[in-house]
């Protein structure tokens, strides 16, 4: 058995963008799936709770869950470009979502679909197109339009622009932010691209091997990263400006969750590793009202 997420506590406020960063296999997507209860067996939530505006998501009946999904929380998946059905038109896929949740006539749903496409910067005539007739960026816009269709309060975006070219990524992110200003939804933004996250997120959480190792306001995480893993990650991206110097990144390999050590999961790759790291799992310590990190070296510094 693999523990994909281990004792993670997070809040997302209304209208906020929370970024969640980490390497592949660190559990960031599993977390996103859990919030809308999209995980499938054999995955199970063995402990913990998920509350959405006070309601317990984990105890919802299938019927309530269907109401909850997409009306309240929608998801833009990682391979969003390929999550469209290739054999039916864009229009059919959009009205399918609308009619599954709302009682509206096909004509009305179609009209709503056209408006949606326009909001994401596509021409209304694209309703007639098939996915293969659109470029990757356009397909991504369609998927965002579908996520927006029912005006959810939270959109979970799992690596929404990873497969896109940087210029297209920029266009889509700019549009998304205009839409966010207009509709006021919250975003849970999951990505491995810390630079992009630093630009768009209000707060950032860093995950390593299923654990949340640092959480703070974007500026805190970027300017005063406290966890050695966060520091290493930030030192892994060459910059466009600034001096051209050798960066060192993080030594070693990502942790295999089938073979986890006692104590801190980051010990094997950490330069600051000392005795307690080999035996005790570090807890999150509070560094500022908004900033927390889980590292024995920090706890040591705070207490003595």
């Amino acid at each position, binding site marked *: 058995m693999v523990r994909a997420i281990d004792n993670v506590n997070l809040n997302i406020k209304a209208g906020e963008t929370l970024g969640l960063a980490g*390497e*592949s296999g660190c559990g960031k997507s599993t977390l996103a799936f859990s919030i809308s209860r999209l995980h499938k067996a054999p995955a199970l939530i063995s402990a913990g709770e998920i509350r959405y505006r006070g309601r317990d998501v984990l105890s919802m009946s299938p019927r309530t869950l269907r109401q909850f999904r997409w009306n309240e929380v929608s998801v833009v998946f990682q391979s969003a470009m390929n999550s469209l059905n290739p054999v039916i038109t864009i229009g059919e896929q959009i009205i399918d979502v609308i009619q599954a949740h709302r009682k509206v006539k096909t004509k009305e749903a179609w009209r709503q679909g056209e408006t949606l496409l326009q909001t994401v*910067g596509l021409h209304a005539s694209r309703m007639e197109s098939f996915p293969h007739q659109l*470029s*990757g960026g356009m397909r991504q816009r369609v998927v965002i339009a579908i996520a927006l269709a029912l005006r959810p309060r939270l959109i979970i975006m799992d690596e929404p622009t990873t497969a896109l*070219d*940087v*210029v*297209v*990524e*920029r*266009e889509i*992110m*700019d549009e998304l*932010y205009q839409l966010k200003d207009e509709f006021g939804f919250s975003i849970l933004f999951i990505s*491995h*691209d*810390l*630079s*992009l*996250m*630093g*630009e*768009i997120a209000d707060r950032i959480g860093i995950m390593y091997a299923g654990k949340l190792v640092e959480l703070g306001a*974007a*500026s805190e995480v*970027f300017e005063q990263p406290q966890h050695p893993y966060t520091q*290493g*990650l930030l*030192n*892994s*991206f*060459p*910059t*466009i*400006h600034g001096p*051209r110097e*050798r*960066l*060192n*990144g*993080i*030594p070693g*390999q*990502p942790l295999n969750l089938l073979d986890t050590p006692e104590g801190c999961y980051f010990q094997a790759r950490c330069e600051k590793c000392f005795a307690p790291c080999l035996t005790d799992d570090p807890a999150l310590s509070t560094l500022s009202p908004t900033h927390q990190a889980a590292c024995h070296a920090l706890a040591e510094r705070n207490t003595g």
Partner: protein
Amino acid sequence: MTTSQQPIVSARNLTKDFTLGGSLFEKTTMRALNAVSFDLFPGEALAIVGESGSGKSTGARILSQVHDATSGEVTYRGKPLHDWIRQGGKRGFASQVQMIFQDPFGSLNPVHRIFYQIARPLQIHGKLKDRQALTQRVHELLETVGLSPAAETAQKFPYELSGGQRQRVAIARALAVEPDVILADEPISMLDVSIRLGILNLMMDLKDQHGIAFMYITHDIATARYFAERTAVMYVGHMVEWGNSDAVTQTPQHPYTQLLLAAVPQPGAQKSRDMTQYQHKADIPMWQPDSKGCPFAERCPHAREICKEQLPGVTQIAEDHFVRCYLYEPDGTT
């Protein structure tokens, strides 16, 4: 820098056309590369930066003889590629120019141990026959790429290694035949962020210590500047700007390079950069043999009549900095 040296690979006016579907009588021709020229120097890296579909991989594939050029010439050590192949066959040429691919999960044979993957090129190219020498060389190569203990790694299967370790095996395999040139096609884009830098640093050491010339194909202009001495920016099959990496990234001249750099995310720069001057939704055009003008004209905020009529010539901005844009042509002012 090394400009006094002879280039190890030179490409002149390289053009590559691909014929696309359509019916028997109606075929479309796409020009993936149009009159591309570049030089690669020993012990130096040239980064080719561009978006998907810009033709950046096509150039490398011509160098490695996966494709033939439609027109133009490639010379290796001053001699045309075809002469090399006539004399030594494709295999002889392959022992001097090697490739590293994007996907380390697809480029290693899953049913063979790591030892086999690296020993194979040594046997095929007849470098070593004796089993003991072979084992020693394989272990040596694994150590070079930082996979120690080598004896242990050699006995593993690809599935037992992480993505970063697999890419190191792919690099060891490319090194086995002691090439002079390595063509690295997006070698880090499928790896985890924390290990990308390790692979880049390894390639940097190989370049500096073994004098291997690298052609580094990437969509990430920041890593291009980090790794490569020289950078060429490609757009729709054309090299639009090239030269010293610092010059290209710090003082970009071509409007496309400027757009590309403005699009790179920068933490702290809060959501405010003005990109509206660029024609957003203009589709990236498909270049055809009879297309004319500058490929970027439709999206360019500075486009003029002439940009749609004729491909701009090459203007030298600084000692090692060139651009293809009418804005900088001496007689093209206003």
